């Protein structure tokens, strides 16, 4: 067998060395990027967890505050109004013909009914005792009684059971959406639908108000302005769901909440 010249042997050896080195560099680059990726993913996971904890705490604080206000309204303001009502009844017995006393009696009765309804609406424990559908129905009736809005509500539920914590969050999102329709959208007609499937729960709130562009609201006016909307979306994400806002077919806004069950 012929002996290969040293020059060629050397070039061959150096080439093999460079080849090994280059392949090693490529794998080093990949490995390094994988490590960086796993660290970034870990950081994102921690941030998300932290964000969820904050949101959970916020929700718990909000719920506790609402329950406290609800109790105060029911036990304190409600009791005082009841006393006023009793006194007005006594006065009415003494002078049954006094129109002012009778009007005041009726007025106090109305305020008492409204206070009780508001107190119930603020307390998720009482409200959701009979389920999400009833709670939403109660809220819809409360808005209807205001007399300025036509609210339609349709529901198709009972297929699956939704977790209690999720029900509270869904109900609070619904309350916020409804409040937005009344406060900002200047809507006259509102349609609410609640539908359950085996996979998910869909809640839709459609109004005929002035509408808004979600992206512009967040970008143009800064995050502060759209903070309420962002918070709603975060709450939906907390349940692995999503909340989307679209323009209505003619006017207004369509808010669609989907939560997996």
């Amino acid at each position, binding site marked *: 067998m*012929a002996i*290969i*010249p040293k*020059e*060629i042997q050397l*070039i*061959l050896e*150096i*080439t093999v060395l*460079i*080849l090994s080195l*280059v*392949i090693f560099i*490529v794998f080093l*680059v*990949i490995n*390094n*990027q*994988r490590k*960086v*990726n796993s660290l*970034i*993913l870990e950081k*994102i996971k921690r941030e998300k967890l932290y964000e969820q904890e904050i949101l959970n705490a916020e929700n718990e604080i909000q719920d506790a505050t609402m329950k406290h206000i609800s109790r105060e309204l029911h036990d304190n303001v409600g009791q005082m109004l009841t006393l006023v009502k009793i006194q007005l009844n006594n006065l009415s017995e003494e002078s049954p013909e006094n129109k002012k006393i009778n009007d005041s009696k009726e007025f106090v009765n109305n305020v008492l009914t409204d206070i009780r309804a508001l107190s119930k609406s603020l307390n998720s424990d009482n409200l959701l005792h009979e389920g999400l559908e009833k709670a939403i129905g109660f809220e819809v009736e409360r808005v209807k009684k205001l007399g300025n809005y036509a609210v339609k509500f349709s529901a198709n539920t009972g297929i699956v059971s939704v977790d209690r914590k999720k029900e509270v969050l869904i109900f609070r999102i619904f309350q916020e959406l409804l409040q937005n329709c009344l406060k900002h959208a200047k809507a006259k007609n509102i349609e609410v639908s609640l539908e359950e499937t085996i996979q998910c729960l869909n809640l839709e709130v459609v109004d005929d108000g002035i509408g808004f562009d979600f992206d512009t609201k967040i970008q143009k006016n800064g995050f502060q302005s759209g903070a309420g909307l962002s918070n709603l979306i975060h709450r939906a994400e907390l349940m692995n769901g999503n909340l989307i806002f679209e323009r209505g077919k003619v006017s207004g806004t369509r808010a669609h909440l989907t939560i997996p069950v």
Partner: protein
Amino acid sequence: MKWFLIYSDIIAPSFFLIIILIKLIRKENYGSNYILVYAIIQILLNSICDYIDFVDGNNYMYYYINQVLTLITLGFLFKSLLSQKKILSDFFFIICVISSLFYSDNITNSFASFPFGILSVFIIINSLYYFKIKFSNVELNYLYANKSFWYVAGLFIYFSSNFLIFISYNNLISKSETINYAYILWLFHNLIFTLMFIIFSLVELWPLFQKRFN
């Protein structure tokens, strides 16, 4: 084995071309048009070179043409990949084209070692630059799941490993003591060339494997 190594500079890009053609027939996406053009150039010019070599002719000119066309094709590839920093890529590209043109007097007399060396430096610098800009950002980056990354990695492995063979080859085939053994280096070059096209082919086949086993 020797037969395979001699003709692997045609077999490897042809295998890659068949995969791309199948993908085209099945209306599936493939990686890069520039790599496809590069493969076609390699098949055509390496076939001509191997045939001329088979009939004991002079194929230096065709290797020179191969170098020029490769430089242009891969120059455009890096221009598209480094679109944000294309000035640097353009600068090296112009230097390489000028260097190749200066060499054009010798194209029929000797192997284009110098232009191939320049081409290798061009690819190595652009590849390293590509890696630098793509991996310097500390953000979530799945670049290794990207076809472009593996194309650049394949080119980087091929041109950096063969740099020494390219620049010394003309010298080795002009000396009487090494002329009969220089083919060993060329066979080794073909082996690395095959490795590069295996990487390119796997990049195209990988999604099919993923579909099959998922």
